[in-house]
């Protein structure tokens, strides 16, 4: 295929808008995705995006700004989870699951029986990247700037608390504010991804690329830069492929992201035996010696 064919699709204004949206979201997802993976917040990220769904339905039905409705509900969810985790209660995973199911159910009931907007449900759940407008792009830009800024300013604290939560207070991270900012930013980023990939697929941008790059990096900065680049690549590729095949863009991006993760994980798993085969890895020998030396 000629490069000109590939570029052809990006001549169209609505595809260009979608591309800008995807690239802005890559910055937000690259900065926040690494923290989501590092701090074990993947399920929270999925939950907060799903929780935004009834907010979207309400906004759609009552005629106010959808991001506002989504963010209102997502913020409520973030504060609830933040409060519970600050109290050190275990099991907020099950709470996330409960709220997630409840939110989806309420959203569906509202859409089908209250506002009779069932036709929009699919768009709300899986996004409509090719239909984004200036409002959505502005939101993505704001979130990208906030995410990069917060990472720059608060990253060291997020890292220290994740590394050793027990020592956080002694190290001088006395207030839970830094972690609350992280939870709220993730909620905001989840809302921003709704227009592109929808409530159910937002982790395709927020979690999967960061988890993929994590397999091959050992430091925060290369991990973050790599995640921004991979998200941008997967988003652009998904956008182009969906344009060519007429498949929904959100799902196409999710499939590409999942596929790249599987490839990266397979490469990493098979790298170990390969090194052993080549004989330049003493680790298995040492491990065997430890096993023999043990009881």
């Amino acid at each position, binding site marked *: 295929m000629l490069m000109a064919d590939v570029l052809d699709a990006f001549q169209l204004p609505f595809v260009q808008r979608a591309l800008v949206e995807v690239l802005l979201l890559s910055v937000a997802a690259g900065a926040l995705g690494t923290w989501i993976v*590092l701090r074990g917040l993947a399920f929270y990220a999925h939950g907060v995006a799903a929780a935004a769904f009834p907010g979207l339905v309400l906004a759609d039905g009552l005629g106010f700004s959808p991001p506002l409705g989504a963010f209102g509900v997502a913020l409520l969810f973030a504060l609830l989870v933040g409060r519970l985790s600050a109290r050190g209660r275990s099991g907020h995973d099950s709470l996330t699951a409960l709220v997630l199911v409840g939110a989806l159910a309420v959203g569906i009931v509202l859409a089908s029986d209250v506002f009779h907007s069932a036709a929009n449900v699919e768009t709300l759940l899986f996004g409509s990247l090719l239909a984004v407008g200036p409002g959505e792009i502005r939101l993505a830009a704001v979130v990208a700037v906030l995410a990069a800024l917060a990472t*720059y*300013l*608060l990253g*060291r*604290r997020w*890292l*220290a608390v*994740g*590394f*050793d939560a*027990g*020592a956080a*207070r*002694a*190290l*001088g*991270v006395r207030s839970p504010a*830094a972690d609350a900012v992280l939870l709220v930013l993730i909620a905001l980023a989840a809302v921003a991804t709704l227009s592109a990939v929808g409530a159910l697929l937002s982790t395709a941008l927020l979690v999967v690329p960061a988890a993929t790059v*994590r397999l091959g*990096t*050992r*430091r*925060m900065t290369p*991990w973050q830069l790599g995640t921004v680049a991979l998200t941008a690549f997967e988003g652009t590729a998904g956008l182009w492929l969906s344009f060519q095949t007429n498949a929904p863009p959100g799902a196409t991006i999710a499939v590409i992201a999942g596929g790249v993760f599987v490839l990266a994980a397979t490469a990493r798993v098979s790298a170990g035996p390969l090194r052993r085969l080549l004989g330049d890895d003493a680790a298995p020998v040492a491990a065997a010696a430890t096993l023999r030396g043990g009881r």
Partner: protein
Amino acid sequence: MSALVEARGLAVGYGAAPVLGDVDFALEAGERVGVLGPNGGGKTTLFRALLGELRPLAGELTVAGRCGTVPQTERSRLDFPVSALDVALMGTIAGRPWWRRPGRAERRTARAALGRVGLEQLAERTFGELSGGQRQRVLVARALVQEARIVLLDEPFTGLDAASAERLEALLDELASEGRGILIATHDVDQARAWDRVLCLNRRQIAFGPPAETLTREVLAATYGGAIVTLPAEDGREALALLPPHHCDHEHSA
């Protein structure tokens, strides 16, 4: 001279009921205090109270100085994308406003602390790739960067080979000689005999004092419950031995 840590009638716990009570002890500057007790005896709970994670349910706890902590190794920590230098730099958070990132001065301090624990060459190495003893020393370096006057170590000698353990022990002696107070949770009663005082915990304080007077058979029996046996010794003195916890729980098949 006032104590670095002072507990009076202290009770701590996670809900309303204390898991550790009747704690009365003081940690003076320059002292190494061994904290002995069975698993679940309250060693970690006491440390969490000292770190400000748990509030006293009763009594008083005075902590006069910053606490540095060397926690036990957790699997998740070994996966963390941080270098030894990054970990040492975590000690600088308290010293600067939230909007400032660590600058050149902070990096110098962190490198100097790694140098003091003998790890300057490994500053850029990933934390999880270091040996057990080296990881403990990186965490000691973090406490040094914090300018911690009190250093808490949770089972720091577990899993270390003899050479690493000796090196860590020498480092702790050095920290104490600078006037820091060192609290070391351990299972090794013999090792604790070399320190200045011992604090024996089993859901409450059993005893506190210099090891020679404190570590009597009665105290050890009360501290460790049934997991203690007397061994006949060749020089006429009897030796006490602790059974590792799992020997009490189940039989091993060969």
